[in-house]
């Protein structure tokens, strides 16, 4: 890909055509109807994941990164959340129009999810062994004993020491890191093809975070799963992701493979984000900041939602919304994307 193709039409995924990816989110719109008005949380998000790759969805709070995942999983709180458009195709079938029973089957077996807060995601009144074995009994028709055996195997796989005894413990008896492992084990129980990890390490200490990220990467490799990693941490993303989608105000503003994104970010928001990061290996003086605040989703700025905070903003930015355009192997939603890609 030496020359840069410029395509002014909005793109679906990075390679355009629909219906050929394992999971495909297409032009998704979600809004929250609150008493203060309608918050447009997701405004046309499209991305896709294939087996064996890790897509990182990067964004700050309110960017819509987690809501997208909740919509994929079908666990969006309705009300206040409503899907107002778009499609989510898993193996070519639209999850949003699927009958409820069928969709329930996809959950867990097709796509499963790891949450940020393992303590509240696990049921405190049952042992972890029971909770995992229950999955096998309900969904695989296994006997109690078989379910238990599989549960121990799973806990072993996520490297919980003395799994055979710890299986009788309750969630609160595990440390934060171990609890996150239990949840990962549970999400793997039905051999999903796609794992969504929503801020899986945000609540953990750095040394434990590193262990969990290693584990997730290893499991993804072994099982050849597709993984969607939702995070705000640019460091974690750089460590494990293959491709990155950067979200701002419910839209994807930039999409690229991990190396090109860090080497040459092509959206002013991504550039500013990278600039504002304190670095472990560099001692800087003043950090470059992004002025202002993340947008209020009840009143998203006209044109490009980032324009009030953008250094490069011109008149056109508040008047016209830039589409996410494909530029070679990457995409950027900025009126000046071509200049940015062409720089240096």
């Amino acid at each position, binding site marked *: 890909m030496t020359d840069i193709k410029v395509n002014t039409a909005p793109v679906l995924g990075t390679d355009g055509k629909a219906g050929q990816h394992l999971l495909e989110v297409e032009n998704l719109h979600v809004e929250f109807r609150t*008493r203060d008005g309608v918050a447009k949380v997701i405004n046309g998000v499209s991305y896709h994941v294939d087996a064996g790759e890790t897509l990182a969805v990067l964004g700050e709070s309110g960017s819509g990164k987690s809501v997208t995942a909740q919509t994929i999983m079908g666990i969006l709180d309705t009300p206040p959340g409503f899907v107002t458009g778009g499609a989510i195709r898993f193996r070519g079938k639209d999850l949003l129009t699927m009958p409820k029973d069928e969709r329930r089957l996809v959950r867990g077996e097709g796509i499963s999810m790891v949450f940020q807060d393992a303590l509240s995601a696990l049921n405190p009144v049952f042992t972890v062994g029971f909770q995992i074995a229950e999955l096998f009994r309900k969904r695989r028709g296994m006997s109690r004993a078989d379910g238990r055996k599989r549960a121990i195997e799973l806990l072993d796989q996520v490297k919980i020491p003395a799994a055979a005894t710890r299986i009788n413990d309750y969630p609160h008896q595990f440390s934060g890191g171990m609890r996150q492992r239990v949840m990962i084990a549970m999400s793997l129980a039905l051999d999903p093809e796609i794992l969504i990890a929503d801020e899986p390490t945000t609540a953990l200490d750095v040394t434990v975070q590193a262990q969990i990220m290693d584990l997730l990467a290893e499991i993804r490799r072994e099982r050849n799963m597709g993984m969607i990693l939702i995070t705000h941490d640019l460091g974690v993303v750089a460590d494990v992701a293959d491709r990155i989608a950067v979200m701002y105000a419910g839209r994807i503003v930039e999409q690229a493979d991990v190396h090109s994104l860090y080497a040459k970010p092509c959206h002013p928001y991504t550039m500013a984000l990278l600039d504002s990061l304190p670095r472990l290996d560099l001692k800087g003086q003043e950090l470059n*900041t992004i002025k*202002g*605040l993340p947008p209020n989703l*009840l009143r998203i*700025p*006209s044109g490009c939602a980032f324009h009030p905070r953008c250094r490069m903003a011109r008149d056109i930015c508040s008047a016209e919304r830039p589409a996410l355009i494909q530029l070679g192997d990457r995409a950027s939603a900025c009126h000046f994307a071509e200049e940015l890609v062409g720089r240096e």
Partner: protein
Amino acid sequence: MSSPEVATATSPTEPTAVPATPAAAEVAPRKEKNRGLWSDAWYELRRKPLFVISAILITIFVLMAAFPQLFSSVDPTVQDLHKSLEKPDFGAWFKFGEQGQFGYNVLGQDIYARVIYGARASIVVGVFAVLGNMLLGGFFGIVSGYLGGWTDTLLARFGDIFLGLPFVLGALVILSTFASVQSDPSAFRITSLVILTFIVLGWPSFARIMRASVLSTKQLDYVHAAQALGARPGRIVFRHVLPNAMAPMVVVGTITLGAYIGAEATLSFLGVGLRPPVVSWGIMIGESRNFMEPAPYIMAFPAAFLVVAVLSFVMLGDAVRDALDPKLR
């Protein structure tokens, strides 16, 4: 805020200066009226049918209690034996100044007037008993929650003694001791006695709620922040802990008010609570005992008012709790 960049935008997030130059100031993301938690709750409440209905009903009951003349021009104590056990006159229902809408009791007293005047006793007993409970229970709750340690343990055990007493039994014992069934206490004396009974038996529950609320509030960061500034305990309690710990007690108080109106009626029915010449729904229901078959309306009307009043306060309490609990939003 008149920065050229946003001149064209309808953006709620005005641009901010880089923090080092504070001249151009930040603007809150939400442009709206100043709203505290209580006014927020008020906003929430106004759009709840449950709240609106119960609030209207309670307003009517309170008006009844304060100005019964507005609703009935008849003296509820006047007896006219000619009218004894006369049936309700449904034709008079929507005409003001008429009497006999709900019929007459055995003494020939106007039941409609008595039901209206009876609201006062119920509301007065309920409101003062709850206020007393809030003051006493709230005080001990704050003390044990804030000080903790031995004070807390002692107060908790002391309160448990009262909680251990079954409510009706406790009230029967207290009231029959200080105002025996044969005695004829003045209206003021018996009403205060009933209120005091409710407070004596009720304060530990209120203390518990307040204590739990204070315990969770005093661990919040802003309380530590005030301590770090060198604030004295008085300021911490009254500025920081109390205003933020009140909500659960207000909710329980509202619901309890309904329960106390019911309890007052129960005790009056049993003959140990309020008694004539005081007019109250409980007394009226008690009077109806011997006339259930020939004149069921003697019981039906006060009972209906009682049920609606109790229900209104319970519903109000529910609505207030939903509005004050941000987790349910």
